[in-house]
């Protein structure tokens, strides 16, 4: 029996993952769609728990330790509860994104359990705390309305935190990355990432002209400089690239973007010339076999692991990923490929992209520029960090020693990533709630008209074709919000900026309401055909 479990579970695990990824890709089109496919949603959650069960049974079969089963039960219960509670509190949440985050956490926990049970428990505790935090974040963000005005507060806080690590930090693997407060080791650069994105989003909030870009760039480069001095090259690179992309989105100027890439390349060359620890990494990348006893050891072991698994992997507990030094933090992807297979690994790559696309297109639909930039910044941070770590592990690019968000072992990394996602979720929820409010009013108006026209004997059918409303701001007139025909046949929503009227009016969202085009969403009661126009994913 044991032989069969150890040899066979890898197939359903890989196939389930493929189904999961396929559904996830199809669902990108449906971001924010209130008629999200419930079947797909249930399938995703079903696969999440099914794979978790299969994986823990396999580990149990190999290790024969009851604690593995208890850990699984506890983990499944906590995750199920988190999913249930989140949906109960926020019926308008981005359910799919939340499920994906849980899936990533679960994959990470499975492979860490296999590598080291104690570390898995620690990771789980932190993830559980993170999931609780996600429930509180949307409520907090609604209260925190001055977020966009704190531009340089974010920058200074971030720089101070990074500088503090540089000065008093403890060296981990030759880099000054973390310090310990009251027995808890923290890696501040993970959390400063969030402040950094908030800083850039607020800096470009009003405009992104040359003056603004230079000012933001100055502070951004201080961040990058401190990180390079701390020898945390991976984070330095992420900060730099996030700056480039956010500047591109804010200004729309590709010449700045190309110039930035050129400057970055020159900077990288200078780093290679100046720092021996950078040279060593480049050598280990170009020819790891020549330094297999030294700097190339980790990378070559990673390559052995990835190719050793084959399509379906060696099966959980059946490979030797523990040969790779720091496997659970820096080389988790190699361990996954070896034991769960290349197919699974490819699906993981695709899933990273799905999560990224989900955040990216949500960003476009956020009315407020601040929130739009924030979501975009988090999306780029997430995908670029994933790229750096996976690319490094497979020898696509030099090793930078960053973690795979949500999957790798590392409390600071997991917690900060969960925080990022919950902020994107929070914006999403606010947006959806607000749109749902409009939709309700729109429906009420439609009903009223239909009644009126029915009274006057006209055919009701004509009014089902009532065009989608556009929301426009009418600042000077304290009108009650209502639909009015604006000369032509397009109804316009006029809003009354009174707190009693709309519970989000005092969220600081009033300013930018004018560019909402409801046709970019599908909201309760809207015709699907109209609602899916302008949707994301395929364009």
């Amino acid at each position, binding site marked *: 029996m*044991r*032989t*069969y479990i150890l*040899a*066979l579970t890898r197939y359903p695990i890989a196939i389930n993952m493929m189904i999961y990824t396929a559904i996830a890709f199809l669902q990108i089109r449906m971001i924010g769609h209130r008629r999200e496919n419930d079947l797909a949603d249930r399938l995703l959650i079903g696969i999440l728990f099914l794979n978790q069960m299969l994986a823990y049974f396999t580990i149990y079969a190999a290790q024969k330790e009851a604690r593995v089963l208890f850990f699984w039960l506890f983990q499944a219960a906590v995750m199920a509860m988190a999913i249930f509670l989140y949906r109960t509190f926020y019926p308008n949440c981005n359910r799919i994104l939340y499920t994906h985050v849980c899936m990533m956490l679960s994959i990470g926990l499975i492979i860490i359990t296999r590598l080291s049970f104690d570390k898995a428990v620690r990771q789980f505790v932190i993830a559980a705390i993170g999931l609780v935090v996600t429930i509180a974040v949307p409520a907090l963000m609604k209260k925190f309305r001055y977020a966009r005005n704190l531009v340089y507060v974010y920058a200074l806080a971030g720089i101070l935190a990074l500088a503090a690590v540089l000065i008093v930090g403890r060296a981990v693997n030759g880099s000054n990355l973390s310090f310990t407060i009251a027995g808890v080791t923290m890696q501040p650069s993970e959390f400063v990432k969030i402040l950094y994105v908030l800083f850039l989003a607020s800096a470009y909030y009003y405009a992104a002209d040359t003056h603004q870009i230079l000012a933001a760039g100055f502070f951004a480069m201080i961040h990058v400089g401190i990180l390079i001095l701390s020898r945390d090259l991976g984070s330095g690179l992420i900060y730099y690239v996030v700056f480039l*992309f956010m500047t*591109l*989105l804010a200004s*729309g100027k590709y010449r700045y973007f190309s110039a930035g890439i050129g400057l970055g390349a020159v900077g990288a060359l200078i780093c290679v010339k100046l720092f021996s620890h950078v040279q060593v990494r480049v050598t280990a990348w170009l020819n790891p076999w020549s330094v*297999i006893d030294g700097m190339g*050891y980790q990378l*070559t*072991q990673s*390559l*052995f692991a*990835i*190719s*050793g698994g*084959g399509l379906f992997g060696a099966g959980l507990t059946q*490979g*030797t990923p523990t*040969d790779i030094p720091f496997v659970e933090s820096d080389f988790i992807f190699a361990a996954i*490929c070896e034991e769960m297979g*290349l197919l699974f*690994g*490819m699906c993981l*790559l*695709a899933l*990273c*992209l799905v999560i*990224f*696309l989900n955040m*990216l*297109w949500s*960003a*476009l639909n956020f009315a407020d520029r601040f929130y*739009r930039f924030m979501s*975009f910044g988090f999306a*780029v941070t997430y*995908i*670029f960090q994933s*790229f750096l770590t*996976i*690319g490094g592990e*497979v*020898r*696509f690019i030099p090793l930078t020693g960053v973690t795979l968000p949500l999957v790798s072992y590392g409390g600071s990394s997991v917690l900060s990533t969960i925080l990022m996602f919950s902020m994107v979720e929070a914006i999403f929820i606010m947006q959806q709630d607000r749109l749902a409010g409009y939709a309700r009013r729109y429906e009420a108006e439609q009903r009223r008209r239909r009644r009126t026209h029915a009274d006057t004997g006209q055919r009701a059918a004509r009014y089902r074709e009532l065009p989608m409303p556009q929301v*426009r*701001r*009418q600042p*000077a007139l304290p009108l009650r919000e209502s639909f009015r025909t604006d000369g032509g046949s397009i109804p316009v929503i006029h809003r009354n900026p009174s707190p009693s009227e709309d519970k989000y009016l005092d969220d600081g969202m009033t300013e930018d309401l*004018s*560019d909402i*085009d409801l046709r970019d969403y599908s909201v309760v009661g809207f015709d699907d055909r109209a609602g899916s126009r302008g949707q994301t994913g395929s*364009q």
Partner: protein
Amino acid sequence: MMRNDRLAEQSGRKQREKRRMRRDIVFVQWFFILLFFAMGIFLCTYSFRYKRELFDNTYNSREKKMLAKNIRGKIYSSDGQVLAQSIQDESTGKQVRQYPYGNLFAQSVGYAVEGGSGIELAYNYDLVNSDLSLQEKADADSRGELYQGNAVYSTLDTRLQKAASDALGSRKGAVIVSDPKTGAILAMVSKPDFDPETLEDNWQRYLAEDPTVGRLLNRVTQGYYPPGSTFKIIDTIEYLKEHPDDWQNYSYTCTGDFIVDMEKIHCFHYEVHGQENLLQSFANSCNCSFASLGLSLDRASWSSTMKKLMFDEDLPYDLPYVKSHVSLDSTTSTKEVMQLSIGQGETAMSPFHMNLITNAVADDGTLMKPRLVSAVKTASGTALEQYKAEQAGQLLDSQSAEEIRKMMRAVVTEGTASKLADASYEAAGKTGSAEYDANDESKSHAWFTGMAPVDDPKITVTVIVEGAGSGGDAAVPVAKEIFDAYFAM
């Protein structure tokens, strides 16, 4: 109205900005999708293309991990004998590799320690993996046994291997026997040899003496020898190509030496052959005649013929070998062309390559891909991979091949390989005595490459005995013993 215009303009600006951002987001989306796509392709191709190399790397512990579950597979000969097998030592639990034939297959089957060699190295991945069915694995588990690794079936025949090894005796040299119709290598002997079972104990000593003794070297594929008169096969192929209709008119009068540009070539043992045609020159292995013939050949055409015969080219073989080398272009001096014609000078090749050319001559010009392994199967006999006979190319036209077989037969009936003349089968071949010491002309390697029976060749044999003198005296008897053993089978 004015307010409405302003509002409309503001709204329009917002819409334009949103369209612009949509465009930028599309750019960012494809930027990362393509990046990940490229990374995925890179990752898959890299790990599949180098799967075996990575597995065989000594820093990779997966082989050890495999051997904790699987017992290293067996290697079989084509006549069903076990050439290598592993047993688990009952006291220590470690696996011990056994080679029932001792030294006999030292270089061809190779060894599995110290980095490995031969079949043991080339098929290491198959041998340490076990593709038994789950049922069989579960049975092994219930018996508390390790899973038996996959078995490799070689094309080597223990009887021919033994005949070849005995014929060579304690002399340094190499023998390869193959089936020209299928490309199967039937015997591959290199001397001096070693016992793979005790290799680890003697490793340091072998390494120390290796530069002079070359015990670990497989001379068949990695020996690098001047081909001597066996190279006249190549000269003849080119001459037939240039003179398809009038080659019968070739005539040369041998006076014992041949002098051009102060360079003197003489026949072996200063023999004088008198007037001879091409067939007689070939049978007598007349150096003067071939030096003169070589000078008459078109260099460009000759170069392309040698390229086609795989000189300075890759051979169609998956295990390690050396590339053969010839040197000929428009600037080559007369002296060097004369040396080339008789297989001396810079010219060097492996016995394996000479055997491949012989195979092509035997098989009407077609070269079959040489194979040392015919199949990989699970321990219970399910075939995992079959290596069927396949063509590797047409080295020469069938007409030339037939003429050269006739000339090779003449070597046996009236020429230098007369020791094969009274055999019960019709053998054919070419001898060679390759000088290798510039200071001492009397020292030579003895070559023979040939086939039998000449009308429908079943096997080809290529022999080199180092420093043994003339091919006719030293190498032909070795070949004869192998032919005898084959036709007695």
